[in-house]
Each structure stands twice: as structure tokens, then as C-alpha cells.
């Protein structure tokens, strides 16, 4: 399978790396020698120097034989133009474009229907906003991902020491929290190592635990695990850029008390004109006085989403030291990721990681219909539908031949969430949620689809 990636920036780089590991034929196009050298050094990909908006370069990259075309430069315009040319040069290619500006996304149907004929527009800003909103909706969770159209959630929590399941083996999980709730522990992150657990693994203090459950059970499970927290209502958003504005707009209702801090007068005027309830403040996020003036110690959540990640990290630390309950930081550079937790920032959002996740989502072949990365990129949760003619239908879970380090977390059968045991049988149209380490993904994909289609 040939994949063309336009743009070797942070998003392009990581996509190329991920796809190359999965044995795909990857061609990366960029105008910068430096960026191309970096990609070529780290992954087994072909690189072409030139602009993605040039049809000659696209032809050179072999767009005619390509299956997937990813336009992920930082410029919306170049992404759109390259998709235009790609659709003219090759009829069947699947085109995914990263487009962020509202002036294009508001009229997204014009790009997906005719002309550019883009298969899917990926808007990382919107996804970041959605992930922050999800975090706010489940107080206490560190990370939340959705499956099956939002019916099933994969929730990451820092397991508190007083939790009833602390120190117990996973096979005894049901005895500890009650038989009426369905959940499966999908992964444990311990000492920076990701573990896909088995029944005999024991939960230890300091574990970051990921579990899967029905969204309707979520609050009850959180309560029984001892991680229930006060709901988030008072919010300070730092940075009134695209993400900050979208977020404030989403929180523009009676439930939330939102403050939005921005340091440019003109932008403040714009924000104040377009927002009703949120209070727009002008000032610097590292100015202690303004933070105190606005009662930073009473804030349930401080969300720093300026374009400058150093500012974001520092203002979150300042807010935390002044008493803010939780902080969310936007980070662009993956290099900072390992830093976040040790220095005491609660959550990280990363538009580029969101973009990568969504793009991978659409690249998966067969019937894998959604995927989510856990712990950066070490593991992925996949969602797949068992079609009637699929080889897995009628088999028991233990006979599926999944490799070690991968696990079927649950089935969704109609409206019901089934937590499987080894002898549970896959029925047609079941939605399977599977977790797997990165190296095993091709093997899992192979189990789920036929070999001929895949390679």
C-alpha cells in the first residue's frame, strides 16, 4: 500500500514513522532538506524535495499508484491545493487533509463534495477542544477516548492509594467493585512502562490505569474506584487563539464560569464581541497579580492553549502553585511529553497528536473503524466490526490467535456492552474493542482481515 505524505513537519514525521513500521510504502514530500533528512534517518521511507502544491512533484511521488494521500503541511492552502491536484491526477486515491482555519472548515462540504474531493478533513484544533471537553466531563480522569460512536469509553485514571482494587489481582476485580458493573482493565502504565495486563497482574501504587466501560456506567465506576472528583465549573483559559476561542465558545453557557485570558488588546475586543458569558481578560498569563485578582485559587481547571508551549507550561505551573485545582497544557513538541507528568501538570493536549490519531484512523484497512493511541504511541486501542463473512465470526476469543500484548477488551452487541471471557464467541456485527502494543498491530490487523486484501 502506497501512502504519500505532503509535509514533513511534526505531524508528517510521526505519521511516516508509524506507517513505515506497519510495513507501508511511504513517500514524503517537503520543501525543506532538513526536515526530509530527519524523516529519512528515522524511518524507511522515500523522500522527495519540492512543494506539495506542484503537480510535477505529485506525479514524481507516484500519486497515480497511491492508495492514500495525506496533506499535512502547516498551511491550509497548500493542503487544499495539493488535494485538488491529487484528485485530478488520480481518481481513486483517498485524500485526507489537515485544515484548521474556520474560514475553510465552516464550508468543509465544498472541499469534500466537489473539486478537491477530500475524503476527510482533519481539524486538530477541534479535536483538541473536544478532548478537553471530555476531560472536563469526567472529573478525575487523566485521559478519555471514545468508541462505538461515544457509547464506550476508554478512561485513564491515576489509581488512588485508597482505592478498593489497589493491590488486588485483576481476576478478583469483580469481587472488589461489585458484579453489576462491567469494566475491563485495558492497560497499566507503571514506571513509564506500558503493560497489557493479564488476570494475574496486580495493581500497585502509582499505577496509571486504563479501563474500558459503557458510558452509562462511567460515573458509578469512577466512584467505586475511589477517583470521583468535584465537577469542573470554574475554568480559566489562557490564550485566546483559535483553540482558546473555540473552547470558550463551547463553555459559553450557564453551567460554566469561564474566564479567558489573552494578551493582545485587539484579539480581546474580538473575543469579547463574539462571546456572551465568558469573561475576557487582558493580560499576561505569567502575571501573578492578574491571576490572584481573578481568584486563581478557586479555579477548577486552568487550560493553557497559547501557541507558545513554554508559556503554556510555565503558566500552568504558576497557576498550580497559586492553588488551581487542575491544569491542562497544550504542547506541540513531542519532546516535552515526558516532562509533563513529573513537573506536576495534570493533562496534556496536543493538536498534532490528535491529527496523527485521526489520520491513522482513516488509514486502517479492513474493518477497523477507529483507533486511539495510548501512552504517546506505545499502544493503540482499535475498534473493529466483525462482518458476517469475517474469519473471526463463530470463534471463541481464546481461539482468535491474537498475539501476546494484545487483548479483546469488549464487544458491543446491539446496545449491550459485553465483557468477554476466554470462551465468549464472536457473533456477526459485534463491535470489538481491542488493545494492542504497536509492534503487534499488523498481526492483529491480519487476524481481523484476509491476507490477500492486506498485503
Amino acid at each position: 500500500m502506497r501512502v504519500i505524505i505532503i509535509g514533513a513537519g511534526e505531524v508528517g514525521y510521526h505519521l511516516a514513522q508509524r506507517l513505515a513500521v506497519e510495513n507501508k510504502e511511504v513517500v514524503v514530500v517537503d520543501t525543506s532538506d532538513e526536515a526530509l533528512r530527519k524523516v529519512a534517518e528515522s524511518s524507511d521511507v522515500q523522500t522527495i524535495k519540492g512543494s506539495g502544491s506542484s503537480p510535477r512533484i505529485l506525479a514524481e511521488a507516484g500519486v497515480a499508484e497511491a492508495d492514500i494521500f495525506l496533506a499535512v503541511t502547516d498551511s491550509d492552502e497548500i493542503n487544499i491545493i495539493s488535494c485538488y491536484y491529487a484528485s485530478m491526477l488520480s481518481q481513486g486515491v483517498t485524500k485526507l487533509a489537515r485544515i484548521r482555519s474556520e474560514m475553510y472548515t465552516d464550508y468543509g462540504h465544498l472541499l469534500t463534495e466537489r473539486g478537491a474531493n477530500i475524503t476527510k478533513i482533519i481539524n486538530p484544533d477541534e479535536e483538541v477542544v473536544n478532548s478537553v471537553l471530555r476531560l472536563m466531563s469526567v472529573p478525575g480522569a487523566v485521559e478519555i477516548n471514545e468508541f462505538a460512536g461515544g457509547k464506550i469509553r476508554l478512561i485513564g485514571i491515576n489509581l488512588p492509594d485508597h482505592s478498593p482494587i489497589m493491590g488486588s489481582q485483576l481476576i478478583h476485580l469483580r469481587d472488589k467493585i461489585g458484579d453489576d458493573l462491567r469494566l475491563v482493565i485495558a492497560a497499566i502504565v507503571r514506571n513509564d512502562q506500558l503493560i497489557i495486563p493479564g488476570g494475574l497482574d496486580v495493581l500497585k501504587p502509582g499505577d496509571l490505569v486504563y479501563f474500558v466501560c459503557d458510558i452509562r456506567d462511567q460515573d458509578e465506576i469512577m466512584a467505586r474506584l475511589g477517583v470521583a472528583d468535584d465537577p469542573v465549573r470554574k475554568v480559566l483559559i489562557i490564550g485566546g487563539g483559535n483553540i482558546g476561542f473555540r473552547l470558550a465558545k463551547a463553555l459559553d453557557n450557564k453551567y460554566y464560569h469561564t474566564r479567558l485570558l489573552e494578551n493582545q488588546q485587539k484579539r480581546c475586543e474580538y473575543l469579547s464581541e463574539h462571546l456572551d458569558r465568558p469573561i475576557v481578560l487582558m493580560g499576561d498569563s505569567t502575571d501573578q497579580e492578574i491571576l490572584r485578582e481573578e481568584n486563581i485559587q478557586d479555579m477548577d481547571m486552568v487550560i493553557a492553549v497559547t501557541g507558545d508551549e513554554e508559556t503554556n507550561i510555565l503558566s500552568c505551573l504558576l497557576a498550580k502553585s497559586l492553588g488551581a485545582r487542575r491544569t491542562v497544557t497544550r504542547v506541540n513538541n513531542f519532546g516535552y511529553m515526558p516532562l509533563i507528568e513529573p513537573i506536576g501538570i495534570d493533562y496534556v493536549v496536543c493538536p498534532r497528536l490528535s491529527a496523527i490519531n485521526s489520520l491513522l484512523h482513516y488509514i486502517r484497512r479492513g474493518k477497523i473503524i477507529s483507533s486511539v493511541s495510548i501512552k504517546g504511541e506505545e499502544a493503540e486501542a482499535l475498534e473493529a466490526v466483525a462482518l458476517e463473512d469475517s474469519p473471526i465470526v463463530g470463534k471463541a476469543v481464546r481461539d482468535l490467535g491474537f498475539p501476546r500484548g494484545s487483548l479483546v477488551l469488549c464487544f458491543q452487541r446491539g446496545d449491550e456492552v459485553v465483557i468477554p471471557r476466554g470462551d465468549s464467541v464472536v457473533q456477526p456485527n459485534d463491535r470489538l474493542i481491542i488493545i494492542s502494543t504497536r509492534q503487534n498491530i499488523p498481526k492483529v490487523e491480519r487476524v481481523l482481515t484476509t491476507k490477500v486484501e492486506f498485503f
Partner: protein
Amino acid sequence: MRWRYVLHVIGALVACVGLTMALPLAWGLYYGDGTAAPLGMSMAITVFVGGTAFLIFRHSSHKTSIMTHREGMAIVALGWFAAGAFGGLPFYLGGIFESVVDCVFESLSGFSTTGSSVLADIESVPRGLLFWRSLTHWLGGMGIIVLSLAILPFLGVGGMQLYRAEVPGPAPDKLKPRIKDTAMTLWKVYVLFSALETVLLMFGGMDFFDALCHTFGTMATGGFSTKNASVAGFDSAYIDYVITIFMLIAGVNFSLHYLMLKWKPSAMLKDPEFRVFMCMVLVFIVILTTAVLISGNYDNPADAVRYTSFQVASILTTTGFATADYELWPGLAQAILLLCMFVGGCAGSTGGGMKVMRIMLLFKQSYQELFRLIHPRSVSHVKMGHTVVKDDVIRGVWGFAFLWVGLLILAAFVVAATGVDVVTSLAASLACIGNIGPGIGGVGPTDNFAWMPDAAKWVLTFCMVLGRLEIYTVIILFVPEFWRK
């Protein structure tokens, strides 16, 4: 300022007013009540004087030149006084009043839709003149300038200046790209509602004459009746409710009615001013009904609702019809009606007062100041719904509020100086500057203004025009800077 041009346009306006006298003249001829002669003569004089001024001051350069802001305001302000003076002619020639001030008072009370009267016995006045008296309401309600804009082609160029001067509200809406079409549209809506109300009133047993006169009084939020006892003279719950509803309709921005008629009801339902207006109406009716029931003015809740809702609608929209003597009601009820006098109708309606929109902006701006004390670094705007209100509009509203209250107090001082008691002089000034009609004290719903000294009547007449043209257009004539070349 080109005086020839100003007089030229005023001449046309006066001639227009003269032509409208043809309508009462027709009634006079039909009834043969002896009003045909004075009305005919008034019409001849008015049309002659207006037409002569129009022709004498005509100049070829006027066609192409653009009207300045100042000229527009001078034309509107002076044009209103001129219309009022000539509008009083039929009363003078018909022998209704002895003194000139009474004629001008009655005429401008009509044009400005105030509805304060110096007539002691209305029913003794012949019908032709009563019809003229009510017609002045109807002409002044939507605005004689707006009417002129709709029908006089030569005003097209400077139309916007004139329109702004007569309809100065905080946010003048242009319904159509051209001002002439906007004026025409507003008049069409006005005529449509008037026709509807007339028919509904006739169903209630009024004859055509009464129905028409009361429609004029209602739709213009004027308040002249053809009965000494005002609407109470008909003593019909049906008529009370029809008039109540149409008073409220007239108190709402006519742009919203236009959108409603174009099947865009959401525009009205989502309009913040409309919502506040309707909330006030409902809350006031509930409070008043409770108050009058507790104090025992009415035994029957149905009666209480009928009379309080009529009074609230009448005073809040500044119509001034009466079906009950609210001076007999408890203090709380009277205080609320007094509050209504200040508030008035919505911007862009035919109602007077300070206008709901301005009161809302004053509240919001005041809240904004408090908010800024709590959040000194905040950047915020005053908004109506989701729309930002610009700072110059807010400044205009503050200036207006100060001048309105200041001139009200000044007028009350002058009226009191002529020997009227304090409460009455304050109420009379408020009733006139707010274009309401009845006040409290010596000018309550059962009294009239006939007994006042002439000097007080002149002041109050001036106040009526001041209120109708929303202060600025008139008061600017007294600013020396305005006359500087």
C-alpha cells in the same frame, strides 16, 4: 445653513398637512355639522401658505444639492412646530377655543401623540373637528416626516437626514436599502394594523366614526377619545381588550411587525427589547391586579385583570386612554404606573417615554461599570442579544437620559412657577415630555389641562414636541454652535 432650502421643505410639509384636512372635511360635509366651513378654510389657508413657501423658496440648486445634518434637524424641528400651529387652525376657526395657546396645545398634543387635552367637554365638539383631532394622532404617530418621505419624491436625496431626525432611536433600522421604501413599508404596516383594529372595534359595537377615531388614538399611542369618559364610556370588556392588545402592538418596534408579517416570527420572539417589554407588561399586570384586589378596588378578579391590563398597556405604551381612575388605586399600583410613564414603548414604535431599549442600555452599561470594578482587566462590551452596542450609541443614550430628566425637571419648575402645585406640575411635565397624556394629581385620568395657566400650557406644548422628537432634534436649535457659520 441654507434658509431658503429649509423653508422650501417646511413649506411642502405644511402643504401636506393641509391636504390631510380633506379627510375631516369629508366627514364635516357628510354630517353637515357645521364644521365644513372652518375645516375648508383651514385647509385652504394651510395649503396656500405651505404651497407659497414651497414655490417662493424653490431654487434650481436644491434639486442636486445634498441636505446637511443640520438642515435636516432644523427642517424636522421647525416643521413640527409649523404643522402644530396650522393644525390648530380648525379648532380656532371652529370656535372651540378662545385662545391661541389652547388650539396649538390641542393640535400638538395630537401630532405628538401625547393625548393631553384642554377640552373640557369633548362630546359637545362637532364630529368633523373630533375627527381632525384624532387624525393628528394618526399622522404624528408614524411621523409626518416619515409620511412625507414615503409620498414626496423630491425629499429622496436628504431623506436619511430627515428620517434620523424624526426617528432618532438608539438603533434606527433600515428595512429596505432605500429610505423612501423603508418609510413606505412602515406606513403600510401601520395602515394594515389600523384597518384591522377598526374592523375589530366595529364588531364590538362601535360605529365607524368611533372605531376609526379610537384606532387612530391606539395605533399612534395617542389617547384622544371621542367620549368625555374616554374608553370607559363604552363600558365593554371586548373593546377594552381589543384596545389593550392594539396598544401593546403599537408599543412594539414596527420593524419587528414587518418581519412578523414576512413570516419571520423568530425575529420578534428573540428580540431582547421585545422580550423585556412583554415581561414588564406581564409582571406589572400581575402586581397591579394583586394590589387592587387586596385593597378591595374590585371584587371580581376578571374585572381587576381587565382594568389593570388596560391601564398598564395604556400608560406603558404612553397612549393615555383611561377605563379606570387609577388615582383611587393603592400607592404601589400608582407607583408602578408612574414607573411605566418613564419607560415608555420600544424603540421604533409609536410610543413615547424614554423607550425600553434605552432603559435596558442604561442598566447594562451601569452593570458594566460595576463589572469592571470587580474585574479591572476585563475587556467587555455592552450587548443587545448577541450584538455589540457601539460606544457612541451608549454615550448618546446617557446624554439623552440626562437631558430627558433634566428638561423634565426644568419644565416642572417653570410650570410650578406659574402657580400650579408641585405634584401636578411634575406629573404634567412628565405626561407631556413622555407623550403619555394623563398624569397624576391635578392632571389625572379624570382631569384635563384646561385649567392651567397659559404660560404652563406653552411650556407643556414645547415639552410634547421635545419628547416626540426625542430631545436632540429640538434642543439642538438652542445650542449657539448650531447657528454658527
